[in-house]
């Protein structure tokens, strides 16, 4: 996070993490496609010839109220392939929030677990406490056959504290939900740490309304946040 008092600008770094080919780049592409032109710039991808992410993808997004504070978001993906561990660690540096994109297919369960352990390890290496960083989990590729059942995922999700969303990034479903939930969690943490609402007279409700307008999603924030699976106590209606 970087706060520029003179230009009243807050830059937040969000990172999409996950195993190879789980759809991190596809999530960013869907997010980019959903955004209005005034909210986003070009989606930057640094890929190899076979379309695998080499270093990262970067989606810049800008939201903000007329007065108060404008919020610039830098949404990164990491390269999922095992050999790019040092690059993942570099991209994760200074992350304010992490979305973990898992592959829903039964056969990928072990790969998800390995990538999640890798995330925890790399967070620790960067001096970030894995228990404290805002984290949202997404089970992607719901459109494919042989995926883990929703009931099973919901049951397991209910035992953990991180919100879990189901998605099909190629079809654009669940992408905005995951992103908004991550932004919401991240914003709450940053506000509690830096007193942003108080210092800048920031209107959180108006901000998230602006986010949803610019992501062309007609739902209210509460509806987006409560689309998570396995919720015990639906939270998020609180601005």
């Amino acid at each position, binding site marked *: 996070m970087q706060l520029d008092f003179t230009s009243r600008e807050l830059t937040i770094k969000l990172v999409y993490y996950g195993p190879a080919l789980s759809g991190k780049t596809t999530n960013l592409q869907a997010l980019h496609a959903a955004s209005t032109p005034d909210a986003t710039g070009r989606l930057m991808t640094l890929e190899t010839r076979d379309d695998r992410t080499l270093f990262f993808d970067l989606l810049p997004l800008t939201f903000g109220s007329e007065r108060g504070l404008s919020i610039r978001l830098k949404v990164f993906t990491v390269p999922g392939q095992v050999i790019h561990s040092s*690059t993942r660690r570099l991209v994760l540096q200074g992350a304010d929030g992490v979305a973990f994109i898992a592959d829903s297919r039964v056969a990928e369960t072990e790969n998800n677990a390995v990538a999640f352990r890798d995330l925890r390890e790399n967070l620790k290496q960067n001096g970030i406490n894995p228990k404290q960083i805002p984290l949202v989990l997404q089970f992607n590729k719901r459109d494919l056959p042989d995926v883990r059942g929703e009931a099973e995922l919901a049951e397991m999700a209910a035992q953990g504290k991180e919100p879990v969303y189901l998605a099909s990034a190629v079809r654009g479903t669940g992408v905005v939900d995951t992103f908004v939930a991550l932004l919401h969690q991240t914003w709450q943490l940053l506000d509690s740490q830096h007193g942003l609402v108080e210092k800048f007279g920031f209107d959180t409700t108006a901000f998230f309304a602006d986010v949803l307008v610019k992501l062309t999603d007609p739902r209210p924030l509460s509806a987006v946040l409560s689309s998570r699976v396995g919720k015990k106590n639906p939270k998020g209606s609180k601005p």
Partner: protein
Amino acid sequence: MTSQRPVRSLDELTIESKFSVQELVSRSALEELLASLYDLFGIASKVFASDGALIAEAGSGSALQIYLSSLPGGRRLVRETVELVKTSTPKPNESQQLQCSTGERYVVVGLDYDGRLLGRVVIGPFLLTDDRELPEALLRCDPAIELERLQELWRLLNHCEALLIARVVVHLRTTLGLVLFSGHRALLASSMHLASVQESFRELSEKSATLQAAYERLKDLDRLKSNFLATVSHELRTPLTSIIGYSEMLIAGIAGDINDEQREFMGTIHEKGGQLLELIKGLLDLTKLESGTLSLHKAETPVLPILRDIVHTLLPTARAKGVVLSATGDAGVPTLWGDASRLRQVFLNLTENAIKFTPAEGSVTLSAAMTHVELPLDADDDGPAIVMRGVKRPMIEIRVADTGIGISEVERPRVFDAFYQVDSSSTREQGGAGLGLSIVKRLVDAHDGTVHIEENVPRGTAFVVRIPCRRLSFVG
């Protein structure tokens, strides 16, 4: 450059957006872009960095401005124009059209990237097609001004359609946006590449340090093991000497008569005690060789007498097995530089081994010959730079060749490891603890010599030992 460090962090280049136009685009490429615009429409333009530095330009100033600069009043107008253009700072995504007191027009476009103003593009001077009248300020700027000249220069100015200017602005903004994006992408890729390499290097260095520490610890443990082995061997030898000595005395009847069965039992005790003593001696030798505490008494040593002595010693063993044992060698073979008793140990061991693994009606042959061996520059010298090599060194080559079971190519380098047996079942059959060859190897090493295994055609194995004729020196 805004940073002195070779590698910029990802955050500097993305979150903080700390980079300049010059880092994203090359000046010459920008100049080419502006030149193409000038070629197409005759419109001059300039690109300035956010700190005001001129980065690229195409097209010269107008002839009108050159004329005005020659007059004091005209110079004032030109200065005003420059000041107006300089202070115009459009917001991101905006442009400003300016009309100066000379009547000339400029458009200033913000050079912005990702919401940050990196510099300005100044397009002009030009006139719009509607600009027909010369402005008052221009006509009255200096008493010496010539109206006809002024009108001529005014006609020469570039008269453009307003729509064309608007299109040029949009085109330039789009093109520069793409150029900056590509530049940023390339800058990120190269920075990430460097950072990843650095990160991998850091990781490898850490691992290498851990391995080094583990290696040091293992070396310490190995030293401890050798010391322990030396101590234990020494402590074992003392009581064993008593066992052998007293069994000898009993066999000799010093303590009174013993019957045949007792004699046979005592014989077994004596024989096995002797075997045990040999094993312990071997262990002691090995530990001494490993720790480098074995002292060699090197001297000019003739090799043939040693070989003949070995044949003499082992002839009964060979005969008992039905193996023919012989030693050959040219009488002219020179002396070698070594410790006679240790060399005897080497060849005795090799010959014993050869007899052990050669079946009846086979043969074991010891031979010695003079040879010259090229000295490698170092241990991993692999061929090139022949001219750089040392001189050939005279050495004595001793071969212990048998017609036995042979040793496969894979096993050859390993037989010199301590306690190694090619086939562990042969240990029970043939005896031995696998110490002999490792001692041979270390003794030969201590003589600056080499030992290796060759195939003995048509059948069997030849152990080839080479020992230098004289002290190591670079005199051919």
